[in-house]
């Protein structure tokens, strides 16, 4: 368990923590700095089901770390009321699949309020909706629905892939003043990494996770790690892949992706979400219009995620599949 600094204590230097500890530490820092930051959701009093709120109830109060009924619509809807009246709520949806019970509140209320009422109010809220296959959790606990939210004007869409980014992007999301759809990945909670509290990340800025000259793999969330593994496989075959971690998919860092496309001439977008109408389609379409590059994408087949290991495996977009798609792309046009 991460040691949360006590109120007033300095953040100190970089230290190794998990993706979930980084989230708790980032939220603790924001709550210390700003009394208007609150968190609400199911089981937060026990630290959240993934431990991503561990220590917060003890460090703050039940008034600010709010354990709620299993009422997703009211978790998100009440956060709209809180945001409009002076708080900065962090909303926990447990898994994105459950956020579907709160779609009116997220899409019709939170995302549209500021515009629809002519800027009378602001909606500084972060809606955390863990995505991704979580082994053996089957069709209703495994989806990656980030593209749905990228489609909705008014929302920022963030998908951190490392402990450092989960720390820095959560800070940035809270500071943005916008409603942010924040997608952590359920199989990344235990990943460890160095987190420097002083390191900041701007929303909408990608990270080049691995430089390379032959082709570009654009990805986000857990698939960044699969893409890095694919790049290792490819390197053994003499193909140097550049891996870009998009970090934010709305707004997405077109500048960095296009610059890379110009260097390598080939771009593959890889994501865990279903390929059909996934955000990869948007990136590839944009590059088709604006960049001179060969393009490809790889995502999950358009089938629900099955429970049994051989079934679940069909839905995974792993390093092998990404490397295979990259090889095909590398051969094209030659």
């Amino acid at each position, binding site marked *: 368990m991460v040691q949360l600094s006590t109120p007033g204590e300095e953040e100190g230097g970089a230290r190794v923590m998990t993706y979930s500890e980084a989230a708790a530490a980032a939220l603790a820092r924001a709550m210390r700095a700003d009394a208007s930051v609150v968190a609400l959701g199911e089981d937060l009093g026990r630290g959240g089901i993934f431990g991503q709120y561990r220590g917060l109830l003890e460090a703050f109060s039940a008034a600010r770390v709010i354990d709620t009924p299993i009422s997703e619509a009211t978790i998100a809807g009440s956060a709209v009321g809180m945001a409009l009246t002076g708080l900065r709520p962090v909303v926990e949806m447990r898994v994105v699949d459950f956020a579907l019970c709160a779609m009116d509140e997220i899409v019709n209320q939170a995302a549209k309020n500021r515009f629809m009422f002519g800027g009378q109010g602001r909606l500084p809220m972060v809606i955390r909706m863990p995505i991704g296959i979580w082994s053996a959790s089957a069709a209703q606990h495994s989806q990656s629905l980030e593209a749905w939210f990228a489609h909705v004007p008014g929302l920022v869409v963030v998908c951190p892939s490392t402990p450092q980014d989960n720390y820095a992007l959560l800070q940035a999301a809270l500071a943005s003043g916008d409603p942010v759809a924040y997608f952590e990945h359920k199989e990344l909670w235990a990943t460890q990494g160095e987190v420097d509290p002083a390191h900041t990340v701007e929303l909408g800025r990608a990270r080049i996770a691995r430089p390379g000259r032959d082709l570009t793999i654009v990805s986000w969330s857990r698939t960044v790690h699969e893409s890095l593994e694919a790049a290792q496989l490819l390197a053994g075959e003499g193909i140097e892949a550049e891996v870009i971690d998009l970090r934010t998919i709305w707004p*997405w860092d077109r500048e960095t992706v296009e610059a890379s496309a110009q260097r390598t001439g080939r771009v593959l977008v890889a994501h865990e979400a279903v390929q059909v109408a996934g955000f990869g389609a948007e990136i590839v*379409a944009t590059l088709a219009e604006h960049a001179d590059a060969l393009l490809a994408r790889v995502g999950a087949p358009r089938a629900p995620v099955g429970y049994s290991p051989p079934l679940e495996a069909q839905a995974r977009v792993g390093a092998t599949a990404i490397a295979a798609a990259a090889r095909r792309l590398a051969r094209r046009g030659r």
Partner: protein
Amino acid sequence: MAPALSLVPIRLSDDHPEMTDDSQPDADRLLGLYHTMCRIRAFEDAAEEASRGGVSAFGQTSGTRAQVRGPLHLSTGQEAVATGVCAHLRRDDWLTSTHRGHGHTIAKGANLERMMHELFGRASGFCGGKGGSMHIADFSVGMLGANGVVAAGIPIAVGAAQSMRVQGRDAIAVTFFGDGALNRGPFAEGLNWAAAFELPVLFVCEDNRWSATTRTEAMSAGEGAAARARGFGVPALEVDGMDVAAVWQAAGELVARVRAGDGPRLLHALTYRFKGHVSVDPAAYRDPRELAAAMNDDPLLLAQGRLRELGVGAEMIEARMWAAREEVAAALASAEAAPWPAASAAFEDVQDTGSGRWFS
């Protein structure tokens, strides 16, 4: 009322432990309430007139000449509920409303002229022409907005109340919703939540008997809003929603309890929607005798009768309606002259992060 009509009888139970104060509004107070009702009626009558040909629905085709366009949901006949409840609210109390929200907005203290500008889609409207009737709002008087989605205002009000708790502020939240909202999940969720956290929320079910174009009674199990509230342990009152004095009295009791920190309360006000679901809906699906019976209980007529009983002269009563109609006429004239929003406003107040990025 003719027994053939199937209106749910108004059951005013004589067992209301919280009705400790049986005082009625005095003549001055009642005249003020009546004036608010006149302003709502005059506003909506004018908006209805300005909306003719403004929307394609119910066999009508919209033209280009209408000043008020799109769906216009009128609360004509329901003025006593908004008026009697909001009279007890402070400016810093929060209010969420429904798609039928003109009355709530006026009663909460919004400027009627800027409301008309919004209905006309002008830059000077409360939402800069971005919302129209269905999203009428004046956050500066605590009115957090009408809403195009049934029951959606309920969780927002609950959150506003919880926010006051967190911030140590003593304002309360009130949420209006219709009888149709009783059958949506956020009603059950919001009621439970407010009760579980003992939040300062007054739930007001404005029961006009119709869920859009379908009779609510045929679609709803159980004994209605108050009974459902009591099922969650939330004390509730039923009141004749056509009688502004009765609403004022009942709401006063409940607001006092909510403000005292006793947790949420619910007011079930039985009223009637004189118009169709939207302004162009002739409501041909309902028995005209039902409407006629309800119009006998027009809240403005009832209030006039009560005022006369209290010795207020007819001239004084009539002057209130004349004043309201004059105020609305001036609002119409200024709305017509008001500027349209600049096209660039379509790209303002969307979001800060990534602003300016309208395409990939």
